[in-house]
């Protein structure tokens, strides 16, 4: 019987995702639907199993109900293991040192005992709000080869966007000499992807130290990584090349969905080497009667209307004469006859009444001043009545 795991992954899934507004009113960000049949958390979980990591702690605290139900025993990702597998880690009460998770580092700190059960040599820290495919095993090999204490995955971003990220300033050999969290004047264009591999004993040591510091915000980027750097630990950057997107905002979530479209898309889901697993629903294949152009459609759909440049989730009904253009429809949505949906993200269980008008054509909508860059958002379960209207850039989380 195995009694240890070389590498344990810890997935930070507790974020509130407030910049997704109505989409995260009732569910945690990692449980938000993506790409017609997936949820965001499918990506890190699939990456784990595809990289040979079969022990994953999922740290939740904000609206965990849907996420817990979805992750279940981990079976869709082959993470239902007798030793290891996926575990939901919610905050719990004990005599000392427990509370709601304060920062990212505190969340991991409170689960040191979970990690120690597997006696790991390495710990992989992941975020639950990124869309990408990555072989963590290659990163782990680099970490081992460099005999590093901490390896941070990073990728090149346009310099003008660099101030939105944690930026790594590195030497030629890949070692990091400085870590700047969202710098106003970035010195480099290497952005941290929020993916860290730690040598376990170092992680435990610095988490303890961080916990003892009352001034710390208990955050990896702000506190733990700079502290390790200052102490002279060996910290390496690991360059990732490939598709990666933080889907923390309405516009980036919309873009990432659109990146799936086309015969040669920016992000290819259908290669057989690294399948993204999900809790695939049991619906029959999609029935297509209408016009479907440059779009993806999940199973269970009944499509009699017109779909252009859109992502249509499981069990959606698009009636005759309805039009869905440049939009993302999650699951179980009905768009009734004659309704028009433009440049929108529509959450699950929404019903759009006859002849309702949601959003406006992209070119027009993008001119609208709004916190969603003109994208219209309908929250989970919203009903739009017959002839109802939701203007470009509006966010509706109540019936219209």
């Amino acid at each position: 019987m195995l009694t240890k795991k070389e590498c344990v992954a810890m997935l930070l899934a507790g974020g509130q995702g407030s910049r997704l507004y109505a989409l995260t009113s009732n569910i945690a960000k990692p449980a938000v639907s993506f790409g017609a049949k997936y949820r965001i958390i499918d990506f890190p979980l699939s990456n784990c199993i595809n990289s040979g990591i079969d022990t994953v702690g999922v740290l939740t605290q904000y609206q965990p109900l849907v996420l817990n139900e979805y992750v279940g025993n981990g079976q869709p990702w082959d993470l239902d293991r007798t030793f290891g597998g996926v575990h939901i880690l919610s905050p719990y009460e004990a005599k000392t040192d427990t509370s709601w998770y304060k920062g990212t580092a505190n969340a991991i700190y409170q689960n040191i005992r979970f990690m120690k059960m597997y006696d790991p040599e390495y710990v992989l820290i992941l975020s639950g709000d990124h869309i990408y495919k990555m072989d963590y095993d290659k990163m782990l090999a680099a970490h081992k080869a460099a005999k590093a204490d901490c390896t941070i995955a990073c990728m090149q971003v346009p310099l003008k966007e660099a101030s939105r990220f944690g930026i790594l300033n590195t030497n030629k050999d890949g070692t990091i000499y400085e870590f700047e969290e969202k710098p106003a004047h970035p010195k480099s264009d290497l952005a941290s992807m929020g993916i860290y591999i730690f040598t376990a004993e170092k992680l435990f040591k610095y988490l303890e130290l961080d916990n003892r510091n009352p001034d710390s915000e208990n955050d990896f980027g702000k506190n733990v990584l700079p502290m390790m750097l200052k102490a002279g630990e060996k910290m390496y950057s690991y360059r990732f090349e490939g598709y990666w997107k933080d889907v923390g905002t309405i516009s980036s979530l919309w873009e990432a969905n659109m990146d799936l479209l086309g015969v040669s898309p920016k992000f290819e889901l259908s290669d057989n080497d690294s399948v993204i697993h999900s809790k695939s629903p049991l619906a029959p294949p999609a029935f297509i009667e209408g016009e479907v152009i440059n779009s993806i459609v999940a199973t269970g759909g009944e499509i009699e209307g017109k779909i252009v440049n859109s992502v249509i989730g499981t069990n959606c009904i698009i009636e005759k004469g309805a039009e869905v253009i440049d939009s993302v429809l999650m699951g179980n949505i009905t768009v009734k006859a004659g309704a028009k949906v433009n440049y929108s993200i529509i959450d699950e269980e929404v019903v759009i009444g006859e002849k309702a008008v949601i959003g406006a054509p992209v070119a027009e909508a993008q001119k609208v001043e709004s916190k969603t860059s003109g994208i219209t958002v309908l929250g989970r379960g919203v009903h739009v009545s017959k002839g109802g209207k939701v203007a470009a850039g509006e966010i509706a989380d109540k019936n219209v």
Partner: protein
Amino acid sequence: MDSTVGVIFSSINEQNVPGLTKVRSMGSIPFGGRYRLVDFALSNMVNSGITTVGMITKSNYQSLMDHLGSGKYWDLARKEGGLILLPPYSDETETLYKNRLEALKGATAFLRKAKQDFVILADSDAVYKLDYSKVIDYHIKKNADITMVYHEHKLVKSHSYMTFDVAKDGRIDSIKINPVSDGVENNYINVMVARTSFLLRLIQDAIQHGYTSFGKDILSPGVSSYRLYGYKFDGYYKSIDSLATYFDANMDLLDKKIRTELFGDRDIYTKVNDSSPAKFAESASVKNSLISDGCLIEGTVENSILFRGVKIGKGAVVKNCILMTDNIVGENCTLSYVVSDKNSVIRDNRVLAGCEIQPYFINKGTLI
């Protein structure tokens, strides 16, 4: 329904569809874009609350095993009961079973072990949704020895059928085997309920008397000696007894009413694959078709069923076709009334046509 154990014949009537069963058993014939035929009988059992199912296999059952796995997709991966494969039994004196009775003989050990009072037998060559628990309730209410489910329709073929006359109270008056008839008949759909102990006794009797046919030697003469009752099923039912009926049954799914009856309300369970959602290119044109996950459509598709991972090239026109998993149709092909088994490749510019009563069949893994 913990009181009932299910038995499914996964390898029955395979001679009717030799092309489709060349590489697999009847139960694992792909159907409706993502299912296998056995999913219907098996899901009917699960949806009726049955949690112990024995699956009688014969030969070529690798594909069936691959589909069923541990039974987890049917919620039948259990410590107690669950899905149990019953491979053919043979020893020095016995060879592979040749008929239903011999197949049942191979299942006696399983049935003896079963703690359930009742047993339901079903075939895997038909498409229908039936709540078996209603049949079992009826069986108990009628205090029947055997309850046989029938469906009224015109005989399509004149062999390997059993029809019967049913009295007003449901009692079966007479059984006809392989009758010749032009009219609507009460067709036995090979679903029957009995007490487990009663069925075991029938099988034991049959062995002692050297019977060979369950219908001719047991059921037919049983009309007078046993309490045989007919349960009328009046939902959608289609048995797959030829390539033409296979084609029709698939095409029936394009009818919303039938689709809703089969898949609405309660699920038909099947093995789940994690293909990405179907993709429609700028040049795609799709009408009246079922499109599964993993498909990439660049051409025109009408009145067709596309299984997982089918690729339709630019300029290709596919009408009235059933294309199974991972078929690749090249650019500018024209396909009409084609049934193509899994993994076949049709190169650019090919023209293939069959007709409704005789679709053009392409064997698994063919390159054309």
